[in-house]
């Protein structure tokens, strides 16, 4: 019997969160908390708790401090053993924040990135325990391919 762990499953809205939901079987039996940008997504994960953060992207970078604050609060609330994310920029901040604390983190690069790894995904290599791509052709060096959500 493996240990029951606290998991933070975190993703931005839209396709990022839809991809995260398709991976749910991976953490069944663990204590999972979800985090995303739309509170209405709670219906998809109940009875598991869902926390929200304010979104940021390269297009509105000036919102970064707000997102950083929200993500830090989520990390303090959940105190995860493991973080799983399907992107994008806000979860990258979460991975960077927990890096000194021995939290195991997995970056699943979005299936949308079929030709090159996403911008955030290329940075994720510096902060995540493991980066995986959903496209076999993009697996290279430290970046593995384990499968895809489709």
């Amino acid at each position, binding site marked *: 019997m*493996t*240990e029951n*762990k606290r*998991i933070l499953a975190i993703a*931005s*809205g*839209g*396709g*990022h*969160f*839809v*991809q995260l*939901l*398709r*991976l*749910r*079987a*991976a*953490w069944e039996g*663990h204590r999972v908390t979800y985090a995303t*940008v*739309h509170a*209405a*997504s709670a*219906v*998809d994960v109940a009875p598991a708790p869902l926390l929200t953060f304010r*979104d940021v*992207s*390269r*297009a509105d970078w000036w919102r970064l401090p707000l997102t950083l604050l929200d993500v830090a609060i989520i990390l303090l609330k959940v105190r995860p053993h*493991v973080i*799983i994310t399907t992107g994008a920029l806000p979860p990258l901040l979460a991975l960077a924040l927990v890096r000194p604390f021995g939290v*195991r983190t*997995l970056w*699943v690069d*979005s*299936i*949308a*990135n*079929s*030709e090159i790894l*996403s*911008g955030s995904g290329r940075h994720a290599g510096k902060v995540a325990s*493991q980066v995986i791509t959903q*496209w076999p052709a993009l697996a290279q060096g430290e970046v593995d391919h*384990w*499968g*895809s*959500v*489709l």
Partner: protein
Amino acid sequence: MSGVFVSVGSMMPFDRLVQAMDEWAAAHPDVPVEIQIGRGTYEPRHAAFVRLMPVADYRQRVAAARLFIAHAGMGSIISAIEAGKPLLMLPRLMALGEHNTDHQLATAASIGARPGLHVAADIADLQARATALLADSGAPPAPISKFADPGFTVRIRAFIDAP
């Protein structure tokens, strides 16, 4: 709704698609058209529209529509496949300021060839295909499980369980 549901995602505006389908709605007054316009500035005058609806309502709209039209975003694509609904998509272009990169072109090329998924090259092509697909939508996407392939999730589980 038994008509056309259009969505451009919640993160960035996509007025080119919204305006094209509003024009299409004006030319097809007998077909109900509803558009989720997100952060766009163009507000439809002929089609019904909503800024952003809760995900449960969104999924209901996709399931009820005869045709689903969207940007080439993974949320739209996976929602269409999970609902077994034909999807006509228009990729966002970086050159027009519609996204940070041209990855929606790559997505359309790599995933858009699946049965039931259709990719429009431009506005005229989008409008023509919308009309054609309503007359004959062809084969819908093959239904898939709500979960990724177990071969994938079992490896993520092993990552979680590792000490």
